[in-house]
């Protein structure tokens, strides 16, 4: 089991809105390698879409010439994901992560709230004018089912 679910994937893509769907498809097909529920799969997809859209919309302000990096590690049923951009950065991370906070009036400001509710942990590193890195973690397989599958 351990061996089978060990995987490492790094992807970089242009900051185009259509690449949000690319990231969704990629993460879905990776998570599907772990024998998990559709619910887990949906949750991870939403969290990743939110982070990737943030990089495109906020980090690169919808300019298509940036690159977004997505890295995924799968090991022992734990999914570690980072989404990184070299965009404008976040001035006040704590404020940004507050539900309903958005620097764009028409937006709902729920992206980070979704990530927090769907993943076990969310951490954000950001420097102004340097970029933002969001780390997401979720335990997909419980120890018991891991043990079961290892047989």
């Amino acid at each position, binding site marked *: 089991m351990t061996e089978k679910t060990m995987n490492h994937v790094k992807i970089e893509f242009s900051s185009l809105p259509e690449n949000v*769907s690319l990231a*969704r*498809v990629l993460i*879905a*097909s990776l998570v*599907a390698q772990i024998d998990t529920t*559709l619910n887990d799969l*949906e949750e991870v997809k*939403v969290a990743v879409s939110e982070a990737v859209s943030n990089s495109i919309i906020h980090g690169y302000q919808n300019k298509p010439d940036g690159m977004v990096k997505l890295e995924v590690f799968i090991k022992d049923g734990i999914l570690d994901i980072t989404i990184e951009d070299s965009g404008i950065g976040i001035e006040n991370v704590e404020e940004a992560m507050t539900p309903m906070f958005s620097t764009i009036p028409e937006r709902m400001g*729920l992206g980070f*709230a*979704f990530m927090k*509710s769907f993943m076990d942990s969310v951490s954000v590193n950001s420097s102004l004018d340097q970029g933002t890195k969001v780390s997401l973690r979720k335990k997909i397989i419980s120890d018991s089912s891991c043990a079961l599958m290892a047989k």
Partner: protein
Amino acid sequence: VGEIRRFLRDDSTIKVSRSYKEISYKVHKCREELTAKLNRDPKISEIAEVLDLKIEDIVTALDAVQSPTSIHETLYQ
């Protein structure tokens, strides 16, 4: 958290995903029908429009239900 989940369920972007098998079947059937109608291989976007599906779902479904090709068989042999 509960509220957010409820909100998500209602959000139109997160339609309950239909089973891949069903989508794949419909895509192939639609492709045949459109080929007959248009006299050419239809674009994926045309199939998506007729079936009211996202291209993303078509792509994923087609791969998910693909019968193992020789490549996969040999990989595992």
